[in-house]
């Protein structure tokens, strides 16, 4: 890890409690649950999605939020059962779909940030999500 000088700190609101760190997977596009992901593999399958074929398993998923079918929560709930869920989620647009999905995945989740995580976090950055204290710490990849 790089030293603390290069770190970026965001503050936001806890959606689901917990504290964990991992590698960021960032997309500027919303994600569909039912019809948009494969829960067995933990991958995005939506045609024309920029993450098509990419796995979010054990990643810190940084994205605008949820779209599509009401099956969003149940599909990501299945990801938890299959062991393919992300480690944590950071999103910018609150919906019932993403809120319920975060709850049943039981992963640290935050929103309502002081600055935009979609522009400040890049793929591969090391991110610590401390939802309990409302703090995200980003260590940019070198």
């Amino acid at each position: 890890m790089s030293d603390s000088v290069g770190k970026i700190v965001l503050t936001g609101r806890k959606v689901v409690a917990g504290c964990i760190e991992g590698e960021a997977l960032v997309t500027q596009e919303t994600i569909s649950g039912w019809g948009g992901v494969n829960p067995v593999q933990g991958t995005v399958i939506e045609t024309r999605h920029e993450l098509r074929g990419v796995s979010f398993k054990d990643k810190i998923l940084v994205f605008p939020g949820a779209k599509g079918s009401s099956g969003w929560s149940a599909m990501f709930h299945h990801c938890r059962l299959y062991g393919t869920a992300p480690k944590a989620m950071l999103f910018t647009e609150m919906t019932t779909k993403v809120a319920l999905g975060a709850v049943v995945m039981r992963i640290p989740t935050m929103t309502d940030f002081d600055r935009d995580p979609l522009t400040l976090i890049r793929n591969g950055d090391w991110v610590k999500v401390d939802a309990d204290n409302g703090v995200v710490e980003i260590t940019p990849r070198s």
Partner: protein
Amino acid sequence: MSLKLRDDEKAMLAGDYGPARQKAMALLVRYAEALGVERFVDTTNVAGVPGSITPFLHQYYGAYGSDYNTIFSLFDLDADEVVEVPRVSGHSCMLQGGIDPENFEVLGKTAEALALDQAGEQGAAARDIEVLRTCTPYLVGNVPGRGEHCAWMESSAVVYCNSVLAGRTNTEGRESTSAAMLTGKIPDFGFHRDEYRFGTHLIKVETPVETILDWGMLGYFTGQCVGEKIPVLTGSIGKPQVILHKHFGAAAASSGGVEMYHMVGLTPEAATEEMAFGPGRPKEVFVYDAAARQRIYDDLNANGRSRDVDFVMLGCPHAALEQIEEACRLLDGRRLSENTQLWIFTSRVVRAQAQAKGYAQRIIAAGGHIITDTCSAIGQAIPPGTKVAALDSAKQVHYLPAIMNIEAWFGSTADCINAALTGRWQGELV
């Protein structure tokens, strides 16, 4: 801002109403805190897929016995222990999903999968949940009153509830609807609140929109324009019918995430444009004209290459009786092409009506099937060897090619029935 519970909610959370309602309330509190809301509303109309048992869930929870209580407790309520699930508190129904028992072999499903699905259905029925098994509850008797707080799944039903009926619901999920069935509570977020229901974007319709095909294409255009925001439509929209709203809303909820729309003069919260926008002003204005109509038609046919059609699927959302009658009229007593299958999906209630009027028999005599409970996308079921489908639903053409890896054409019901009779796609925009 923090969540404030009323006395009955505190009592449920404390376990005064039994362990299942305690688990349900605990899940709803987690959900409300995630949303960041201050309170719950009382809901009197809940539509979900409570306790549905799939082969995967049956196997996953095998160590716990995999019965209805197990799946409802551990999956639906996301609890860490199995509790006895009592009868539900209020008006609750089970939406589409599962397997039509009369056509499970046509759908390519096993007897084992059917038995699991039937066990789930019986578990729901034993708890006073209406077994509607359709994505169109509003076609078969579940018609919320104006202002009624609902908790519904199924995006095409949600948008119909908010827009056409002026009921109030967000797009809920399996877990929140199952918990709401036991508690009669749902977070006071989004569409439950007056200030959230006003229009945000204006769509000016400048080309005639009369048929199901046209309402579906306008819906697809609308969703592409506004995403998950709230459109207000003005202009040359023809006379409304239930089936036209059904296809418009389903399409708008698929290409975007539209959960509510206003059509000035046609929907109840939009007597005038001013009423539809309330205190706000349109953030953007879009025009639907002949060129936009052609572009949407081309978009919806982007997955079509071969004109040899081997599967025609109608009934997304589930067909109304007049749509089945229309299919019969178009078939006109002829047999389907040897190379083409025709499946029409509908609800059990509508199929019973179609049987009473002889339509179902005529579809079957032509070589087709009338199938209930599910659809090709939800059930991931198409005839073996299907390469090219023909569909009259913008929603289904949005999902099915990606889910089943096939080509698909989009057109009118007449284009689709013609393809079923000839085996060839000859649709074009007129």
